[in-house]
């Protein structure tokens, strides 16, 4: 009953256990997985390289999306599967604003910040569209977002008249690459900023309490004066903002866009990050830290599979198997069985 007692949340054990398992696997298989080298890139700036850096780099996009996905899941008890398509739209908007009418401009037609802000507005509008369908028309989130999932990439192509704009300005590459003089990939810093913002929001507003209350019991939340529809709507808009940030990183990496490939299947990884964080996919209580950690674990897995030279076509199948194992192991049914089993074999062993 001590007030303010800092308690370690048991939920964090799930992604941490998965992380340790993956790390051990790589350590046994090939310890060079953990090697980090300092080199220089084509521009002559110092950069760190290695599998761990890749995980930090690409896991960050996922972590940013996991923030929004966690809130959507908690409030609506469903998931947004249009995230990848929405990233294509956001990325396309950024390129369109930067390029103007010419698809290969020598100089940027607008400041990068303006392009990013426009993308934020557009992505939040698409989030609002999903949110209205889910919150006010009470359509199942997966079904509602299926619309944008199907149409999103066509919309993205249409924004740029189906051309492939290329940005030659090197500064634009900083967001998905490296800032000169800083050897750590920029997406990691962007993710840190996003995490700090969401943690501040959760601390200084009642967003966390409301989303959980709405997800657990909408009827009783309403009788406590909360507007459940608006909260659900809001979570989709916040996810839209996350999508815009991820979109910026994605197009910055290549300085161009491939409408059909960009951020493909990323929604599945984002949803898995939430699940791996031990959050119930049917909504209610959530743990943001666990989701973010889950995002990096998913990327750890992907990178491990790449390292093992799994063909990219077969990647999803391998991933699915590993994920099934992880998710099934974390279900209450199995955990209960495991702890009974553990108690039977090793009386002193802690619950995994």
């Amino acid at each position, binding site marked *: 009953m001590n007030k*303010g007692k800092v308690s370690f949340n048991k939920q964090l054990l799930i992604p941490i256990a998965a992380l340790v398992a993956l790390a051990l696997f790589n350590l046994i298989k090939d310890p060079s997985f953990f090697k980090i080298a300092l080199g220089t890139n084509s521009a002559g700036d110092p950069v760190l390289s290695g599998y761990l850096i890749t995980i930090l780099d690409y896991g960050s996009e996922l972590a940013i999306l996991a923030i929004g996905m966690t809130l959507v899941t908690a409030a609506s008890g469903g998931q947004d599967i249009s995230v990848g398509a929405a990233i294509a739209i956001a990325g396309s908007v950024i390129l369109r604003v930067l390029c103007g009418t010419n698809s290969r401009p020598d100089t940027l037609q607008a400041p990068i910040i303006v392009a990013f802000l426009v993308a934020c507005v557009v992505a939040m509008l698409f989030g609002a569209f999903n949110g209205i369908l889910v919150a006010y028309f009470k359509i199942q989130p997966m079904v509602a977002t299926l619309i944008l999932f199907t149409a999103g990439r066509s919309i993205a192509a249409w924004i740029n008249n189906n051309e492939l704009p290329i940005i030659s300005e090197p500064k634009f590459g900083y967001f998905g690459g490296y800032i000169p003089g800083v050897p750590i990939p920029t997406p990691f810093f962007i993710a840190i900023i996003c995490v700090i913002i969401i943690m501040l929001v959760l601390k200084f*507003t*009642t967003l966390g309490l*409301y989303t959980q209350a709405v997800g657990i019991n909408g009827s009783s939340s309403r*009788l406590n004066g909360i507007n459940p529809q608006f909260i659900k709507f809001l979570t989709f808009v916040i996810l839209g903002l996350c999508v815009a940030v991820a979109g910026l990183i994605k197009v910055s990496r290549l300085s161009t866009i491939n409408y059909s490939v960009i951020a493909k299947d990323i929604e599945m990884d984002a949803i898995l990050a939430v699940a791996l964080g031990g959050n119930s996919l049917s909504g209610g209580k959530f743990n943001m830290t666990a989701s973010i950690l889950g995002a990096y674990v998913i990327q750890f897995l992907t990178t491990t599979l790449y390292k093992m030279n799994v063909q990219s076509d077969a990647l999803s199948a391998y991933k699915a198997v590993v994920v099934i194992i992880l998710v099934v192991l974390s279900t209450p049914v199995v955990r209960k069985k495991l702890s009974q089993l553990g108690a039977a074999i090793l009386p002193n062993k802690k619950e995994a």
Partner: protein
Amino acid sequence: MKDNAVLELHNINKSFPGVRALQGVDFTLRKGEIHALMGENGAGKSTLIKVITGVYEKEEGEILLEGYDHAINIHSPQHAQDVGISTVYQEITLCPNLTVAENMYIGRTKGAIQNWKKMNEDADKILKSLDIPAKANQQLASCSLAVQQMVAIARAVDMECKVLILDEPTSSLDDNEVQKLFGLMRDLKKKGVGIIFVTHFLDQVYEVCDRITVLRDGKLVGEYEIADLPRVELVSKMLGKELDDLSDIKGESDNTDALEKAETIFEAEGLQSDAGIKPFDFYIKKGEVNGFTGLLGSGRSECVRAIFGADRVINGTVKKNGKTIKINKPIDAMRNGIAYLPEDRKADGIIGDLSVRDNIILASQVLRGFLKPISKAKAYKLAEEYIDMLDIKTASADTPIKSLSGGNQQKVILARWLLMHPEYLILDEPTRGIDVGTKVDIQKLVLKLASEGMSVTFISSETDEMLRTCSRLVVMRDRKVVGELKGDELTQSGIMKTIAGGDNNE
């Protein structure tokens, strides 16, 4: 078997863990009669129906059915249908996306081949003979609720039932539709079907039934001819109170004079919500405890939900201290100092997975606003304070509320609203399903709050409780306000007379 009887139950016993749901119940249904089964919530009506329809197995007793010379054992709903007992439930259990005929014959085809043409012809014949305004090949969803209900009955009838059980079939129908349904019931009665009719609408019982069997607390109270049982007596039998009994527990009306002078804080005029209540007027004075009473389903909860904005208000005005206020949703009511503890604790009260602490601060937090979260330390302090004050038994303030006992959950919800320091507190069945000690605590608390100037509306199914706490009672029947009792009128018999109505004011 008795003459004319189509179904006889003798000495039926059934228990669930901790409850004896039926104790030695007898029941007789005759050919061509409509027999009402009456009782308050928990009286054992549904259990009895479920024993007859084979959902539950009885533990003791025998069931005799016309056409069988020995007692039978009904072991499943399918078996019940096979021996001629059909049931139509409150909620329509047909498939709206299929046609009327398909609904009537679904699950009854023998073999793999269905003769669609014959099925439609048969269905049309039955619909016509029962005078049901529907076509066999019409989609069920396109029929009105009443017609759907009738199709459900037609399905039951076509299975050549001897016994038809109608479990609250009228609760979602309007007056016109109810009349149509009654017409159909009377036709079936003429054809010799025995009908068991379960309802909580007294008027309907007296309109259509021939006999009444009353249950209370799992026991048989008696079987009566409708003409021999005036409404007042029926109500008294259902509630288990004799008319001239208990009139000594008068409300603590020593402050009546003070209340007369107290100013009215909230008043409503012609208030009506979309939950199906008739428009009603209402007022409450500062420091007053009033109550809504009436049988289950009479509209008590719907009235207070309308005041709180929990249901959509479609008509009427609410005034606070004489000034009109707008209440469209719960937060509007909360901003005006109204708190509401809902009837269904599990569905509308608790947020199960959240901690006791979060459950306590929730309403106050919402009132403070989105950008002003109550700090964790403050929340703990407030939660601890109310846990002590109301003596809530919980391992800690961090325990999820769902792991508490019902009475303690209720105290947490009470704490939530008290923390808001409301001017007007509405308590809808605050003592349902909780132990006697806690009940008394809550009653005392209500009186204490009122003496400190809070206005309280107290709703309870237990009349004694209302008489002990309320100084004024609004009486409801069939979804409208039918009277108001105060002072000397506040007695068991006064309440029963007004609930029953019929002979004095209607």
